[in-house]
């Protein structure tokens, strides 16, 4: 029997995914304190790989992993062609537009300058509102951009809002919520349908009883 390969995102979602898998009786081979990137469970024929969050989709789409745990934010940003077969209920946060506290009107320029790690999501959002924007792609510390005058607003994921607050920013507009998803390669879905369905049932039964969110 073939292995089922599951790609897990390092970072924000890793611990919660691990707890969930543990509860489902699947994650016994994983040692969360190890720096190894591959874990194999020979008896259950499951293996796990740890990759960068934004790469989970790539691994799954190319079939190297059959399944993957990825944030909806990453999925939206990647133009992927995978199945999103389950919402895992954890890793909840929201996309929002934020700007300097108290400043609500931007009319200095003819276009709105938007700094973000998520150019595709931002582009789509503002295109729907027919707001012309200039995108400034950043790779981190996005909150800095309006403070130093690099942009008017930012588009980012907001979990608690603390980072915004301490930097004197506030949410101008909520965009939509995101959470962690179980994604699946389209061919694996066919060839491993029975095993994937069983795994889905196991995870569905856990819903609500694991990973209480903050």
């Amino acid at each position, binding site marked *: 029997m073939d292995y089922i390969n599951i790609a897990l995102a390092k970072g924000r979602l890793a611990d919660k995914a691990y707890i969930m898998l543990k509860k489902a009786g699947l994650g016994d081979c994983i040692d969360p304190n190890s720096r190894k990137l591959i874990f194999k469970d020979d008896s259950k024929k499951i293996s796990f790989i740890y990759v960068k969050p934004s790469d989970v989709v790539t691994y799954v789409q*190319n079939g*190297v992993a059959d399944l993957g745990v990825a944030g909806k934010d990453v999925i939206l940003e990647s133009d992927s062609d995978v*199945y*999103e*077969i389950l919402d895992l209920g954890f890793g909840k946060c929201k996309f929002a537009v934020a700007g300097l506290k108290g400043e609500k009107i931007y009319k200095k320029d003819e276009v709105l300058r938007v700094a973000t790690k998520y150019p595709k999501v931002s582009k789509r959002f503002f295109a729907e509102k027919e707001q012309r924007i200039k995108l400034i792609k950043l790779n981190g510390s996005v909150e800095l951009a309006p403070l130093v005058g690099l942009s008017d607003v930012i588009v980012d994921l907001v979990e608690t809002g603390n980072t915004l607050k301490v930097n004197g920013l506030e949410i101008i507009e909520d965009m939509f919520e995101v959470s962690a998803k179980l994604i*699946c*390669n389209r*061919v694996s879905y066919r*060839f491993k349908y029975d095993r994937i369905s069983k795994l889905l049932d196991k995870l569905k039964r856990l819903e609500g009883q694991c990973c209480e969110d903050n």
Partner: protein
Amino acid sequence: MQYLRIEDEINYSKKRYEIRKTIESIFLHEGYIQMEPPTFEDFDRYTYLNKRLTRESMVKVIGGGSEVFILRPDITTSIIKSLIPRWQKDLKLKLFYNSTVYRNQESESVKEIKQMGVEYLGEDSLKADKEVILLALKILNELNDMFILEMSSSKYINGLFNKIDAEENVKKQLKNLIYRKNRYELMSFIEDLNLSKDIYDILANIMDFQGSIEAVEYKIKQYYMNQEMEEALCEIKSLNEVIESEGYKDKIQVDMSMITELDYYDGLIFKGYLPNSYKAIINGGRYDSFTKMFGNKVPAIGFCIDIDELTEMKSKEVD
């Protein structure tokens, strides 16, 4: 460290040639005639006829008089465009191609994509459906007998969507959620749509409408069906008989929630998968209404084989 040597490259090319030969001989044996589509197409006319390809993805070439041409981005359109406008009544054609299409791709600029496929034009629907699906099964079986063929009829979803009273972009979003088998977001999306209970129940369960034809029939009969949806079920059932008699029954997965990337199909749709590949090797379906855009509505069905992915997969097998 040594990277790929010339011999490796030649071997790969040899492998690809053998695969093409194998498929070609099956096509010839089944009475298909080879057709070479034109390499260049008129840019303006092509984009007018085929709106689903983005203008950026087409590879432009400037002619001597500054006219803009494109390198063919798709073979079915090229074949249809040259034959359908002057179609003769009662003509029946079984055509195959062994060719290349060209697209601009973000990461690697111009990409050559090798494709083979068939188009069966002018034949009464059910007869052609049967012949073409058996041909696809035969080829898949020749390549690897562990294959899976996924099929449906787009009439099921089309029939259902005709009953949904909503704007086009809402329907598009709905289709996209079904395409991605995103049940969770689909549920919350239809919650707000104010649908009748019949329709709501189908959408809420549509991703379970898969398995053997008997299982699928049993499931969908418990829900609402209009004439078009009934037709879809009939089409699949009548194909099931030939598939069974040819011994391919256990290779078939019916999936009524199947949605294809191209939206010109109207009837049978199918995809062929091989183990160890990461995407579909065969994509096909019936596209009568697409021919109508070229002046005549002619029964038409065909499929396309991804030769690049197939070669890669086959050369992995050898290792």
